[in-house]
C-alpha cells in the first residue's frame, strides 16, 4: 500500500515535468498523416460502373480487363518504428481510435491522421490489412464508432454471419462483356489465437520501410502509401483468372464470398504472411 502511494506520487510528479517541457520549441508529439493512394499501377483509380467512360480500366496478367465501382478496405493495428527500433503502437487495441475504413469513394477517408505521435525519427511502418482476430468480433459495446462506420449502409464492411468485419470489399466488372465481380475478404476463424479450431485468417500484417525517415516534431509528416490493386489479379502470390459460375473453382461471383477462393485474393492484396509482408502496398513518399 505504501509502495502504491509512492508510485502514484512519483507519477504525478513526473506528469508535472512532462507538461513543463511543452514550453520548448519542439513539441513532444505531433500528427502523422497516412495518405492512401489506390492505384492500378501508377495511376490513381477512378471508380465507375459498367457504362462509365471515365472509370479506370486495368488489364490483368491473364489478359482480363476489369474496373471497380466500389473499393474499400480496413486498416488497423498501426505501429511506427523509430530509427532505434523502438515500436510505437497507435491505439492498436482500440478500433475506435486506431482503425479506419479506406473508401475510394470518400476522399476524406484516404487521409488518416494519427495524433500525438512522440517526436522522433521513424524508419518503418507496420499496419494490418483487416482486423486482428482478437478484436474481430463486431463488439459494438466496446467500439461503437468503428462499428457504426463499418456497418453504415453506404459502407457495408461487416460479415454478419461470421460476426466479423469485411477486410476488403471490391465490386466491379470484368471482361469485355462487363461481367459482375464481387470480391470480399474477411476472417472466419473460431477458437483461441494459436489454436484455431476452424476457419480462415484473412488478417495480414504489412511491413513497409520508409523511403526516408519520417521526422515527427515541429513538423507533422505525411506518409503516402500506394495500394496497387493491379496486384488483386496479378499478385506476388497468385495469378488469378476470374470466372463466373457456381462451381467450386469459380471465383468472380457468386461464391467468392466463400472462403475457398478468398485466400488467393487475400495473399495478393496483403501478402502471404511469411515471405511477402507488403502485398499490394508500398511507400510512395515521406514528406517531412
Amino acid at each position, binding site marked *: 500500500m505504501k509502495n*502504491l*502511494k509512492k508510485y*502514484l*506520487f512519483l507519477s*504525478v*510528479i513526473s506528469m*508535472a515535468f512532462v507538461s513543463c517541457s511543452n514550453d520548448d520549441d519542439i513539441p513532444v508529439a505531433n500528427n502523422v498523416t497516412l495518405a492512401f493512394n489506390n492505384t492500378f499501377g501508377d495511376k490513381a483509380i477512378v471508380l465507375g460502373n459498367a457504362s462509365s467512360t471515365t472509370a479506370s480500366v486495368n488489364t490483368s496478367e491473364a489478359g482480363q480487363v476489369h474496373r471497380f465501382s466500389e473499393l474499400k478496405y480496413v486498416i488497423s493495428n498501426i505501429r511506427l518504428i523509430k530509427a532505434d527500433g523502438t515500436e510505437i503502437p497507435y491505439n492498436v487495441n482500440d478500433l475506435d481510435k486506431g482503425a479506419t475504413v479506406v473508401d475510394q469513394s470518400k476522399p476524406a477517408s484516404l487521409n488518416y491522421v494519427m495524433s500525438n505521435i512522440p517526436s522522433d525519427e521513424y524508419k518503418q511502418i507496420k499496419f494490418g490489412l483487416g482486423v486482428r482476430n482478437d478484436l474481430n468480433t*463486431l*463488439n*459494438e*459495446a466496446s467500439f*461503437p464508432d468503428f*462499428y457504426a462506420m463499418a*456497418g453504415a449502409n453506404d459502407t457495408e464492411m*461487416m460479415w*454478419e*454471419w*461470421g*460476426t466479423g468485419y469485411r477486410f476488403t470489399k471490391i465490386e466491379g466488372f470484368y471482361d469485355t462483356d462487363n461481367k459482375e465481380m*464481387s470480391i470480399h475478404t474477411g476472417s*472466419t476463424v*473460431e*477458437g483461441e489465437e494459436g489454436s484455431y*479450431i*476452424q*476457419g*480462415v485468417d484473412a488478417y495480414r500484417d504489412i511491413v513497409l520501410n520508409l523511403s526516408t525517415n519520417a521526422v515527427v516534431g515541429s513538423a507533422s509528416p505525411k506518409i503516402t502509401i500506394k495500394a496497387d490493386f493491379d496486384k488483386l489479379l496479378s499478385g506476388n502470390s497468385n495469378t488469378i483468372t476470374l470466372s463466373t459460375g*457456381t462451381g*467450386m473453382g469459380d471465383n468472380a*461471383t*457468386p*461464391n467468392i*464470398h*466463400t*472462403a*475457398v477462393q*478468398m*485466400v488467393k485474393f487475400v495473399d495478393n492484396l496483403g501478402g502471404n504472411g511469411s515471405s511477402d509482408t507488403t502485398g499490394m502496398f508500398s511507400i510512395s513518399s515521406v514528406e517531412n
Partner: protein
Amino acid sequence: MKVFLKFLPLLFLLASCSNDDHEDILYDNPELSLNIPSGFPEHNNSFYTNRPTKYGVQLGLKLFNEKRFSLDNTISCASCHIQANAFTDNKPQAIGIEGRIGIRNTPPIQNLAFMMFYNWDGSKLQLERQSIVPIITHEEMDSSILEVIGKINEDPSYKDLFRKSFGDEDITPDRIYKSIAQYEYTLISSNSKYDKVKRNEGGTFTESESQGYQIFQQKCASCHSTELFTDQSFRNIGFPLNLDSNEGGRARITGIEADYMSFRVPSLRNIEYTAPYGSFGQFATLKDVLDYFDDGVLGADNLDPIFKDNGNRIPLTEEEKELLISFMKTLSDNEFTER
C-alpha cells in the same frame, strides 16, 4: 500546490474503496439440475461456464420472445423458432423483417447443449456466440445489440430479471447472450416414443416401426448416429444447390474445398414437425427426401463417399420408405413440442 499533488493519489484510493458499497439484494438463483438423458453425449464445454440458473433461464425465455430485438419490433427469436415445430417455422427459408428472405432453412432448437457446432455450416462453436448473428443480419432482425439494449433498458421487468440473474441491473451484451443460451440449453427433447421404448417405460414399436428401425440402422444410422441422431459431421450429399451468391456450405467458413456445399447432418428428432427439409427447404416432405435418395443425388467432386461409392444413391423400395417414415415418427416428442 505541492500538498495537493501529494494527496491527489490518496483521493483515488478513497474513491476506489467506495466501489464496494453496492446495495444490490442477492437473490437465491439456483442452478437448474438438468439430467443428461441416457446415451446422450457430453455437454458442449461452454455449458459448464454458463450453467442454466432459475432466473437466467426465465430471462432467456423472455428475451427469446422479445420482438424489440428486431429493427421494426416485429419479430423475435420465437417468430421463426416455433416450439410446436421443434422450434422451426415450416418455411423453406427463414423470413425476417419486412418479409426479407434468409439464405437458409430455420434450424430446430433442441438438444443444443450437446452439440459441438451451431448453424447449418457449423460457423459457431459456442451458443453464447450465436445469438448475435440473427440480431444483426439484414435478412433477419437487422438491428444491433446496443439498439436492442436501448429499447429494453428502462423496462422494469428486465431490470428485475437481470438483477435476479446476474446480481445487478446492468443490461450488457454478454448477459443477453448468456441468458438466451441458458434457456436454449434447457430445451432437451428425449421423451419421444423411441426414447420410452428404449428406456422400457412401457409402449412398444408397432411392426412397421420396428421394421423401419431395422432399415434405418442399415441405411441411415452411419450419419444419423448417436442418441442425437446426427454424428455432427458435415457432408455434401448432393442435394439441389442453393444458388444464392452467399452460399458455399461449410466451405464459406473453413476455406476447405472439400467442404464446399457441405452441411451438418441434421438430427432426426422431431423430424415429423420440421418440414420442409434441406438447407434451404428443397423438399416438402420426408417422402420427397427418400425418393430423392432413391432416384440419385447430384454428383460432385466432394460428394460423400457413402453416395459416391454406391452410384450416387441410397436404393429404397416404396415399402422401405413407408417403414422408415413410420420409424422416424417415433422420434416425435410431444412433451417437448407441447402438442
